[in-house]
């Protein structure tokens, strides 16, 4: 299939998309320094700054979640590629309001390399920064190092961002982010590939009647290639794996996120969510909160990510706190 995307020169994609994003949300975000996505109105002095980094091509992730109540600055790299340490360091300097900075990193090889370098440089400058890694993709195996960071970044941004907004100190914000991270699990499934917007090439191959459970954010292979299943069968297979891995007990309270990969419709996500809810009810597990939509995409890939997270009262309060991020407004 020939790629059909509305772009101009491939090498300008990221600069142009960031410009358009900023122009379409003047009240909420703006570009500062070296194309860093920052809040239109910087956070009050004395509050912890929250910074993240990640490749582009996953819109609205990650920069769509910069805003009051969530991130202070997002450092966007090239398509599917982590930004380098220099711009991350610049972001951390800018986000520091005197209370230190929480640096939230999704576990992907390139991002972690940049983040580690950034941390070394920041420490050398005497900046007060703490880094927290999200790795909740259970398809990677049991070693946390092998678990990628998928849509779980969203609750981590949300609760850590809300804690920072409340004025909680860096240690507390970091503890909250890590607690959220420890208590969440994600599994992705793909049924159709995306094309890489710069190269025009499909990023993976799948048979006409196949789906793959465990597919990563950039088409990195998963473990479970199988025949296409119905919505209910798919939801059930994935939910069971997630509940088992997180060891969820009856009466515990869960946040559930169903994240569309790009071409999979909200119609399908609702149908899937409906069955997730049925299965949880059957097991006596409480659905405390839910979110269904596109939070991190992989171009026009078809598939979705299912995330579950165990919530305690503080995490629920922080999840419910107001937010003014362009793609995550909470009143």
């Amino acid at each position: 299939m020939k790629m059909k995307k509305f772009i101009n020169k491939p090498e300008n994609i990221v600069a142009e998309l960031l410009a358009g994003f900023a122009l379409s949300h003047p009240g909420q975000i703006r570009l500062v320094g070296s194309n860093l996505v920052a809040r239109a109105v910087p956070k009050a002095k004395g509050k912890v700054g929250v910074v993240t980094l990640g490749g582009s091509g996953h819109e609205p992730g990650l920069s769509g979640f910069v805003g009051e109540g969530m991130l202070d600055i997002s450092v966007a790299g090239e398509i599917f590629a982590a930004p380098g340490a220099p711009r991350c360091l610049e972001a951390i300097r800018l986000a520091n309001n005197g209370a230190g900075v929480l640096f939230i990193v999704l576990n992907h090889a390139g991002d972690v390399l940049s983040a580690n370098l950034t941390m070394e440089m920041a420490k050398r400058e005497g900046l007060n920064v703490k880094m927290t890694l999200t790795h909740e993709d259970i398809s990677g195996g049991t070693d946390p190092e092998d678990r990628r960071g998928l849509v779980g970044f969203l609750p981590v941004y949300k609760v850590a961002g809300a804690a920072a907004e409340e004025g909680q100190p860096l240690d507390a914000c970091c503890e909250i982010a890590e607690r959220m991270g420890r208590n969440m699990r994600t599994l992705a499934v793909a049924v159709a590939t995306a094309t890489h917007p710069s190269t025009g090439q499909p990023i993976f191959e799948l048979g006409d009647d196949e789906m793959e459970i465990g597919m990563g954010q950039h088409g990195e292979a998963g473990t479970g290639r199988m025949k296409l299943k119905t919505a209910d069968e798919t939801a059930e297979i994935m939910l069971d794996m997630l509940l088992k891995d997180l060891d969820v007990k009856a009466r515990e309270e869960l946040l559930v996120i169903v994240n569309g990969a790009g071409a999979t419709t909200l119609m399908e996500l609702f149908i899937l969510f409906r069955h997730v809810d049925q299965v949880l009810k059957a097991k006596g597990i409480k659905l405390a909160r839910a979110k269904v939509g596109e939070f991190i995409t992989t171009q026009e890939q078809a598939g979705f990510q299912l995330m579950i997270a165990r919530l305690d009262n503080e995490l629920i309060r922080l999840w419910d706190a107001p937010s003014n991020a362009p793609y995550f407004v909470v009143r």
Partner: protein
Amino acid sequence: MTSGISKADFARMIAGAAATIRSQHAVLSELDCAAGDGDHGATMLRTVDRLEKAFAPGGPEDLKTCLKDAGWSVLGVDGGASSSLLGVFFGGMADAAANDMTGMFEAGLAALRKQTKAQPGDKTMMDALVPAIQALRAAADSGKSVHEALFDAAAAARAGAEATRSLTARYGRAKFLGEKTLGHADPGAVSISLLFEGFYKGFSNLKGESGNA
């Protein structure tokens, strides 16, 4: 004899490396499609652009300063794993004495090792880089000229990159493709062999012109 090199020498090596990468970037992207996300060629093009700029006339005279700047500039390529690693590598070369080329490359490798646990055999750029630098050391110890040393290094890097075909990836994005990476050379390792081929050509051409090896 230990072989010192001047900024001018290294600038020629960089120019040579830029030429080989530019002629092969499509291959690099193809390899990265098979075992990654297809952007490695584009990333390497931006990387060599920045390397050349760092050594362009008018810049600092001192080789160490140029290398520090080059490393920082390559980190800023924002091209994922490889640009971070190569930025660390070139920046790290500045940690050694400028009159010892082998020592400089070894210093770059040492800096790189602080950022990755990958070893030869893990199907990464290390499979080309480690043997290349071992070859430089061996050449230096046996009193070979820079010209000869770079020739040996390029040969060792190519052999190392070739050998990655029969390996399965254990680091980077490709890790998740596991067995699927068998049969394809690792794009980063191939980049390293292209860089060293270019170092050799860039260094030697002019030496050739000036008549002595």
